[in-house]
């Protein structure tokens, strides 16, 4: 079973497994965060959606080039494994697959979908402990591919 989560005044949606814990508007710019059921693993798999302003003059590719630079600078042992150009609601988007290590020394695998919608950057980031990634990869991939943006949003 799955749960449809609609946020940003109904403009952004995603589908998560029904047994994931979902939290809405937990912080500014983070309309939804969802966590997988807990396991003995010291890191709990989760998905975070962000919506933030991007300068109007910036293209999607410039936005993502800047993102790669910042992630490389700011995340420990960050390694970009794959960067795939995809579409979300017919818009140019990317899916980023990367590895990094948390401040607590836990190796995690991150998948991030990012789409730029009229000056609004929408991202969906799934973070999975690398040791669990073979088991959870399909589930988080399905969540990422469910990301949708309604036509006409954000007006």
């Amino acid at each position, binding site marked *: 079973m799955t749960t449809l989560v609609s946020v940003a005044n109904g403009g952004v949606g995603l589908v998560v497994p029904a047994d994931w814990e979902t939290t809405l508007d*937990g912080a500014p710019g983070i309309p939804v965060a969802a966590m997988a059921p807990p396991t003995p693993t010291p890191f709990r798999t989760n998905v975070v959606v962000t919506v933030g302003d991007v300068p109007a003059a910036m293209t999607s590719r410039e936005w993502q080039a800047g993102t790669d630079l910042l992630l490389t600078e700011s995340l420990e042992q960050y390694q970009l494994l794959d960067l795939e150009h995809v579409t979300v609601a017919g818009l140019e988007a990317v899916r980023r697959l990367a590895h*990094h290590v948390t401040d607590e020394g836990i190796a995690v695998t991150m998948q991030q979908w990012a789409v730029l919608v009229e000056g609004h950057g929408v991202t969906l980031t799934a973070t999975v402990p690398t040791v669990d990634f073979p088991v959870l990869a399909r589930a988080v991939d399905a969540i990422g591919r469910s990301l949708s943006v309604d036509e006409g949003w954000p007006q």
Partner: protein
Amino acid sequence: MIDLQVYGSAFACRTVAEGLGRLTTVAGGTVDTLTGARDTVQSSWTGTQVGAAIGTACGGRRPARS
């Protein structure tokens, strides 16, 4: 329907608020630390930082530190 149930176990967050408190702290810190060009990619960066923070805050046993 949005599922807001807390699935408790020995390994879960003690409360949703625990995870959210950490999440909010990280998000606030993000705004404070980003400057100049970093503002332009804030949403992507915030997603990675918050994902790492709540995954750790709500995870199970902690790894042994050497």
